């Protein structure tokens, strides 16, 4: 637990600093009169028709899902890269390379398929 203390401390500093500034700004800042037009959603000058966001292109989510899948494959390469040297000096270089070569081949095939199927296309 004591190892994590500095991380907590630093986050606490940032949060305190941020909230102190927000508080200070709300105290010192000019006091405007509340006004229904001012608090309206910003629409470049035209009257806001709907409240908040309406139609947002849903293709963002496909990008996010593919990101997760590829991200995990990349994470799997981290321990591999860390132990690669040890395996080679232990005489198992070919073994560890081919173990990963298969995985990377699957990765490349997946990426190739995604590109081919135009799942990554933005018009």
């Amino acid at each position: 637990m004591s190892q994590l203390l500095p991380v907590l401390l630093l986050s606490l500093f940032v949060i305190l600093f941020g909230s102190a500034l927000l508080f200070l700004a709300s105290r010192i800042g000019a006091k405007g009169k509340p006004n229904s037009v001012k608090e309206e959603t910003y629409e470049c000058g035209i009257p806001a028709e709907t409240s908040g966001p309406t139609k947002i292109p849903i293709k963002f989510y496909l990008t996010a899902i593919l990101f997760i899948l590829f991200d995990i494959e990349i994470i799997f390469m981290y321990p591999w890269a860390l132990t690669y040297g040890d395996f080679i000096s232990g005489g198992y270089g070919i073994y560890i390379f081919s173990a990963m070569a298969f995985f990377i081949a699957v990765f490349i095939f997946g990426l190739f398929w995604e590109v081919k199927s135009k799942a990554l296309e933005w018009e």
Partner: protein
Amino acid sequence: MLWDAIGFYGMALFLIFFALKTITVPNPIHAALYLVLTMIGLAGMFFNLGAHFIAGVQMIVYAGAVMVLFVMVLMLFDLKAEIRSFSRGLLSGALKIMSSALLVGFALGSAGSSVAILDSSDTAPTQIDVTRQLGVLLYTKYLFAFEVLGILLLVVAVGVVAVSRMKGGTHAQH
């Protein structure tokens, strides 16, 4: 030891509070944000238990990827807070709560009795090379599972694209 205990209980309270918030707040986006905090807390717990690399993976995969996807999808849906966010039915509700309570009881009971079986030993893996050992283990003993997971991820990627392409899917051709 006292400080360890204080740290553990502080973190455990943090976790339980945010997990409880996750399942009770009516607005799904707020639930997702509380779940992010729960995930970060769990990463801290993993770290505390000596699983440094796993804690990092928890941050990258869960807090940084899966939960971003949840928040993004909820923002796309633009859901407002639900007035009745829990399912109805007095009897079934009571039954569900009771079964959950029973589960907690069983789990806590078995956890309590585990002290007798697994007494606190000092055979914890040495801190320095846990990640290296993990790598060696992953690419020797668990090599098959690892390769199969690679294929599983490929299948999921193809499946996700197929689901979004199918009739009525999100990317269906009009």
